């Protein structure tokens, strides 16, 4: 099957770029002598997870229980659910443990910690540390850390943080500084626990930008990252990759033309692309995504999607578009701002390898 034959919109994944991205991150983390736990929150696909863990310890991170169940059914038995859990979901999580999974949960809440400790399922648990993002987690130097340690009791396995504030960085030196802030916070927390005679085997951190640019990972036992597998326009802007490293695109069809306005109308709207505008705050605002040729290269120069409706996207070129080529029905590929959000609307990847030939279709899991 060729890309031209596919109904649009749909996801296209270039396996050759994916594998290169996997190899790069794997090599970057290996330099530090630290274990790598690929985060499957972006890809949500067992086939991709198998490629991502090749040569690694085999563990993965996920962001939802639905992912944990899906990957468990696909044979992944060492999973960290890297989003805080609520007590009422513990029974659902316990069903995975009963099927042989080593499931690690995270929390920054004393009541949840007590519930994890009291639950008959032998969960492992990590205390979530806030390393500067201000989203979740406790401060590494706060008394709350020891309260959580006591509450988790024998379930305590270590600490975890996510340097998500790296997304506000705009230069490599800035990323290096934030990566060090992330490392320093989680390692400090680990030593604070150990000083109080709590076990702290796992010291986990990660985000794609900080994993890519950390200068040292002393005291860290594992790194997590997810979007690096696909990359996207925002990651290219914050120096995690180049645009040539974007593996996942949306295949879309031209459904209208306005040569006078140098515009084409596409069948990829807000649902197909998401309304993520993360590149707006970067040096190169890509609108809602960039229109590339069917071969996955930027053959229309900087053709940005400027407006989105539910099922429509309006793209305008920064140079005169080749309307003799861009007819109604012409297929294009759209590079997304934020691959995680764009992929969430789809249930499968059409996999190519540098050509327009679809070699295989890989499923992905959605939902919670």
């Amino acid at each position, binding site marked *: 099957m060729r890309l031209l034959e596919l109904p649009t919109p749909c996801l296209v994944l270039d396996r050759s770029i994916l594998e290169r991205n996997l190899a790069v991150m794997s090599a*970057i983390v290996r330099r530090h002598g630290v274990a790598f736990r690929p985060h499957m929150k972006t890809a949500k696909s067992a086939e991709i997870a198998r490629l991502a863990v090749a040569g690694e310890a085999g563990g993965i991170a996920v962001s939802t229980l639905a992912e944990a169940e899906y990957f468990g059914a696909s044979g992944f038995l060492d999973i960290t659910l890297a989003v805080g859990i609520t007590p009422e979901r513990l029974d659902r999580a316990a069903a995975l443990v009963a099927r042989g999974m080593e499931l690690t949960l995270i929390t920054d809440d004393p009541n949840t910690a007590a519930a994890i400790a009291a639950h008959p399922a032998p969960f492992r648990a990590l205390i979530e540390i806030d390393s500067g993002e201000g989203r979740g987690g406790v401060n590494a130097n706060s008394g709350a850390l020891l309260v959580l340690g006591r509450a988790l009791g024998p379930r305590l396995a270590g600490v975890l943080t996510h340097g998500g504030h790296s997304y506000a960085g705009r230069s490599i030196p800035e990323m290096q500084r934030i990566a060090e802030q992330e490392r320093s916070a989680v390692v400090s927390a680990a030593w604070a626990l150990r000083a109080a005679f709590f076990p702290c085997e796992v010291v986990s951190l990660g985000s794609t930008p900080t994993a890519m640019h950390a200068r040292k990972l002393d005291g860290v036992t594992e790194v997590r990252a997810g979007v690096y597998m696909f990359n996207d326009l925002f990651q290219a802007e914050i120096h995690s990759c*180049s645009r040539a490293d974007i593996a996942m695109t949306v295949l879309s069809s031209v459904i209208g033309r306005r040569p006078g306005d140098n515009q084409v109308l596409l069948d990829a709207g807000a649902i197909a692309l998401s309304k993520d505008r993360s590149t707006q705050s970067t040096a190169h605002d890509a609108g809602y995504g960039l229109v590339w040729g069917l071969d996955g290269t930027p053959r229309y120069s900087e053709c940005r999607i400027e407006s989105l409706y539910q099922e429509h996207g309006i793209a305008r070129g920064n140079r005169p578009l080749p309307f003799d080529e861009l007819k109604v029905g012409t297929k294009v590929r759209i590079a997304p701002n934020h691959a995680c959000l764009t992929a969430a609307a789809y249930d499968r990847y059409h996999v190519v390898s540098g050509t327009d030939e679809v070699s295989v279709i890989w499923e992905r899991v959605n939902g919670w």
Partner: protein
Amino acid sequence: MGIAKMLTLAATPAVSGRPRDEELDLFGLTHPGKVRSENQDHFLLCTVHQQMVVHETSLPNPDKLPLRGQRMGTIMLVADGVGGSHSGGEASQLAAETITRYVSGTMSCFHASGGGEEKEFFAALKSAAMEAHNAVRAESSNRPGEKRMATTLTVGVAVWPRMYIVQVGDSRCYHYWDGKLRQVTRDQTVAQYLVDVGALPPEQAATSPFTNVLASAIGGEEASPEVLRLDIAQRGCVVLLCTDGLTKHVSDDEIAEHLRTMQSSESVSRALLDLALDRGGTDNITILIGRANRADPANL
């Protein structure tokens, strides 16, 4: 044109064998480029000699005595400072001064041994680089709150018929001979590491975000000096050292073409500088070129 420093030695054709001092054609320049407000590069191009110092004499014309001996060797050095404010320039200066002090002393011993202690010389050069690394780290630790000082360092120590090259970072040493240009040093960048381990195809390295991220730097988190040996016995071969301010804008093929038609080290250095500036001059640019002129058949 903003050239900060330069050094030339006269060039005259000669027969083959160890080139005499006056047969050397050496030139170096540095320029801040068109974007950076400060030049954080430093370079040194020098020959090391034994010298006789006359304190007192009854001779009527002591100036006519051969006070300076033929050179023991030649040092070519480029250092590209990295870091905020002035610290990059200070790092490259400190590294250059430290390693030169160390190397010139070591070279005297190596020269005196007739080049027979090569293994020890390799180790000494590596130690010299680490000495510079420690000096920069120490200076950096005296400045709490400032960004860490760091610098690249590429040093060629020529003790004919060989040149020993110390490499830390991504400044480069090239060797040109018989129409072929070869990058002698390996860029110590994360992109090159990814290429080396097979994670990144070589053709992707230039567009990688890691292409300018140093995996090893004097004063940095890690310094991993490499020492290489280069044969410079062929009369007419050219050695070129440069910082990445040149190679960001000028390709290896273009450098080779300029060396193929070179009239003098100075003319090629200036032409390459102009090319880099014409293409944006986005970084400090330093170029050093050295050669021993070919023997002129007419003079044989």
